[in-house]
């Protein structure tokens, strides 16, 4: 039996970003971008599900993000996660990787015992690859980054193939361990139709609050009770629930600040046009020889 925690992130689709989506403070106005499940985190979830298939245990997905991040938590449930936690609070907004790892580490301590923490190597919105190792350090557990394959799992150890510069390594780690995975490491399984039917109505606390808007608080409590009974409740943890140091969360707890943002502009260089002819080539080669670029 091995329980796994999987760190997942909803990310803006960064394939097409303009200055219009940046806020004045240099952070991204995520509400203006379409949001997707960070692919490497899906691969991480697949790793956890494979370990569950083989050894038994529970798979718990965790995300820190705004309320709408519960979209990807539902996707985790569709793929096979047993439970999915939303870590959300206004106090967490604007967090850099250090503040994020603090909150995640505290949340993980609250969620319970585990043999594995899986995460994608990096998220496409920042490409930093920092949150996994930073979280592992805070939990005082070993880490294997850039994992390509789980070779074997025993009661207290795991053997992993990982990428290194110029090759690969096979490492054996004691459990628990943090493992961050590369995108080609596994093919995430498709949603199970049965699970989609079962969990499409799953809701976080914030979503239930929204449903109850205009009604009494008691009504939210009742909704939570009902959703819990039907296993459709996405547990939601706030800064208060985690009893953590607010000064280490969000913008306040983030040492790195965006000082300036510049859109990359084309240099507007005017190249010298060379005719596509023998003569053109001759003149080009002459110029290159003259400038001692060639020869």
């Amino acid at each position, binding site marked *: 039996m091995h329980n796994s925690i999987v760190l997942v992130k909803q990310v803006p689709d960064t394939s097409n970003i303009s200055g219009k989506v940046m806020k004045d403070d240099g952070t991204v106005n995520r509400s203006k971008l379409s949001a997707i499940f960070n692919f490497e985190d899906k691969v991480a979830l697949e790793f956890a599900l494979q370990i569950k298939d083989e050894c038994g245990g529970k798979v718990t997905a965790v995300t820190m993000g705004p309320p709408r991040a519960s979209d990807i938590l539902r996707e985790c449930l569709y793929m096979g996660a047993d439970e999915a936690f939303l870590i959300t609070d206004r106090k967490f907004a604007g967090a850099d990787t250090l503040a994020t790892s603090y909150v995640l580490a505290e949340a993980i301590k609250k969620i319970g015992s585990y043999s594995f923490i899986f995460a994608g190597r990096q998220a496409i919105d920042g490409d930093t690859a920092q949150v996994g190792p930073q979280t592992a350090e805070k939990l005082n557990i070993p880490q294997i980054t850039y994992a390509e394959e789980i070779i074997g799992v025993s009661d207290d150890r795991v053997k992993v193939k990982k990428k290194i510069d*110029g090759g690969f390594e*096979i490492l054996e780690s004691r459990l628990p361990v943090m493992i961050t995975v590369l995108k080609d490491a596994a093919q995430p399984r498709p949603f199970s139709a049965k699970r989609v039917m079962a969990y499409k109505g799953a809701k976080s606390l914030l979503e239930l609050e929204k449903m109850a808007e205009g009604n009494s608080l008691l009504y939210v409590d009742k909704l939570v009770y009902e959703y819990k009974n039907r296993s459709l409740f996405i547990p939601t943890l706030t800064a208060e629930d985690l009893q953590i140091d607010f000064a280490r969360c969000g913008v306040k707890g983030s040492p790195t600040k965006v000082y300036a*943002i510049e859109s990359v502009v084309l240099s507007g260089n005017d190249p010298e046009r060379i005719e596509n002819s023998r003569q053109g080539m001759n003149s080009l080669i002459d110029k290159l020889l003259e400038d001692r670029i060639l020869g």
Partner: protein
Amino acid sequence: MDEFSNDIWVFIEQHGGKPADVSFELLSKGRKLADTMKCALKSVVIGDDVKSLAIETFRYGADESYVIDHHDLHHYATLPYSRILNELVDEHKPRVFLFGATIVGRDLAPRVASHTRSGLTADCTDLQISNVTYLGTEFKDLLLQIRPAFGGNIVATIIAPDTQTQMATVREGVMEMHPLPLPHAVKLVEIPYIPAEFDQLITIIEQHRQESKVNLKGAPIIVAGGYGMQTKEKFKLIQDLAHTLGGEVAGSRAAVDAGFILHERQVGQTGVTVRPKLYFAIGISGAIQHRAGMQEAKKIIAINTDPEAPIFDIAHYSIVGDAADVIPKFIDAYKSKLK
């Protein structure tokens, strides 16, 4: 703050005693930053039998070197290496700590930043020292950490005004390496390593590493092809031209994804950064991610069928035409010149 708190440190990555290029690139950059800040530049070398490597760092501008030399530290391993650095940073509190943005650097730096609660910026492409006014407060000599963000569409300058140690990982090949004629100073500080049980939680069962034979970074002439080359067959023209000129073959990410060329020859944001004397961009549209890896070439020749291709905006010479037509003409002309 003690008297050492203004130092710039560079982590020297090594494999079997051979340093990673990026570490010496960082020393050369660190030297300039240290001169601006009027502070010391220190190298941190961890490994097995690495004293001579530590001494080599003086030739790239280090004033002092911390050496942690122990048989158990032969191969990079996250736990002992990060524990050593955590303790060193806790004790000496450098002002700046730089790492290469390699797999090792990106594995190691975040653990140290997490432990020491330092600001850490990943994958920088430039570093500067500047006085900064941020939210109405003035800060002297902050490290400006410049990196592409959001798929390369944006360049962000990151600062960490409130932490003692400003940490950054820096991409390989973007800083230039400058060996000095004479070593800067020679001061080795040996730090003992005391193995701990925690360090042994992970063991290396096997390691397979092959030094890449490709040296794009050092090549004076690079001939690069893109997706516009259409087929692997046609991509051979790129090799022909490179062969004729004595240059190296390279490709854009699209060419790698299409299987025309191996990843180790990819130029651009997710590949290698190069600055050759001459760069041919053939059938490469010039996406921002590619330009990031080659725009500092001394001369750029772009060949493309599309006269509107963005690559022409950074090229010095433009040839509108099909590679299958242009390349043989160029090769012919070149060969007859040499006669």
